[in-house]
């Protein structure tokens, strides 16, 4: 009888070099992570190129989908930042779409028998990727905050209308809260995707070991399989929700930067 062996749940996060490249002493190899980032970006570009190719007043199905996405993010930006948030719309839209597509593409099942390098890879399940995204957001917040408000941007840490003695307590809290923003943004997205995919592969591992045990236990393998299906459905929700949360928090931080001098 054929023996089954499940891969470790951590194996899916392994980064493999596909094409070895180097720039001086810096390793810039094309990895499976980079490949999936390119696939996500390419998919978004192709989708919007196809959707807007024959743009009409009465949209076809593809164009309606693009319009729904556009309006969803547009409303989000307008409701959170206000009218001056228009200039941030391209950034938030790109961020939302990219995270959404990266999360969703990570859920594509790998075809059995493919070499490890061709396995489906969730780019957002790596802390360094999400940290890069959140650092970009916080850099824009800081640069725009100082550019827009000058040194009044620092009023973000010391809001007016508070008893003077309270500032001793309030300023450190506000500073720590501001500094933890990029970390909390990054860890939220990373940990959600990471934990979700581990749970998914744990259930899949149970199926493999139960089927491999043979006899009555093989039939019991159906239970973790149903569990894996349920977790996959949940992961679709999480994939959307995390992209939404990342976008809305980015909007709130940008709104803080835009209106720092007002309070």
């Amino acid at each position, binding site marked *: 009888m054929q023996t089954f062996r499940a891969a470790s749940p*951590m194996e899916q996060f392994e980064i493999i070099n596909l094409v070895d490249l180097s720039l001086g002493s810096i390793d810039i190899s094309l990895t499976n992570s980079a490949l999936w980032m390119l696939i996500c970006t390419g998919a978004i570009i192709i989708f919007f190129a196809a959707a807007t190719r024959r743009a009409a007043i009465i949209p076809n199905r593809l164009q309606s989908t693009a319009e729904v996405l556009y309006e969803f993010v547009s409303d*989000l930006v307008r*409701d*959170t930042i206000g009218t001056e948030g228009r200039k941030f719309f391209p950034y938030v839209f790109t961020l939302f779409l990219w995270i959404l597509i990266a999360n969703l593409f990570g859920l594509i099942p790998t075809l059995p028998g493919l070499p490890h390098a061709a396995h489906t890879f969730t780019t957002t399940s790596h802390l360094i990727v999400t940290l890069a995204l959140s650092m970009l957001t916080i850099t824009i917040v800081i640069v725009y905050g100082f550019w827009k408000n000058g040194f009044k941007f620092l009023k973000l840490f010391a809001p007016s209308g508070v008893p003077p003695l309270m500032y001793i307590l309030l300023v450190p809290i506000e500073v720590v809260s501001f500094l933890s923003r990029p970390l*909390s943004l990054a*860890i*939220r997205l*990373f*940990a*959600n995707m*990471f*934990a979700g995919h581990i749970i998914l592969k744990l259930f899949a591992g149970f199926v493999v070991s139960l089927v491999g045990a043979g006899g009555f236990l093989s039939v019991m393998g159906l239970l973790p399989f149903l569990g894996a299906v349920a977790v996959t459905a949940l992961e679709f929700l999480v994939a959307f*929700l995390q992209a*939404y*949360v990342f976008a*809305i*928090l980015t909007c*709130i931080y940008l709104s803080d930067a835009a209106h720092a001098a007002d309070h």
Partner: protein
Amino acid sequence: MEVEAAKLIGAGLATIPLAGAGVGLGLIFGNFLTGAFRNPSAAAANQPTMLLGFALTEFTGLLGFTISILILLEIF
């Protein structure tokens, strides 16, 4: 105590924040539903705030999970 055993116990203890996150999430969604049933017309406008609260609460649990994984995989 063996270092390995202490590490496993520590990783287990680091998942306790999940209990707090669970209570918090229950409070958020429960209270949102209570409010939404009382005034259904105001529910849609407050949904982003609820999701924001959900994300911020969830973070405490995820932080515990991350620390647990860091201890288990010895990445530090």
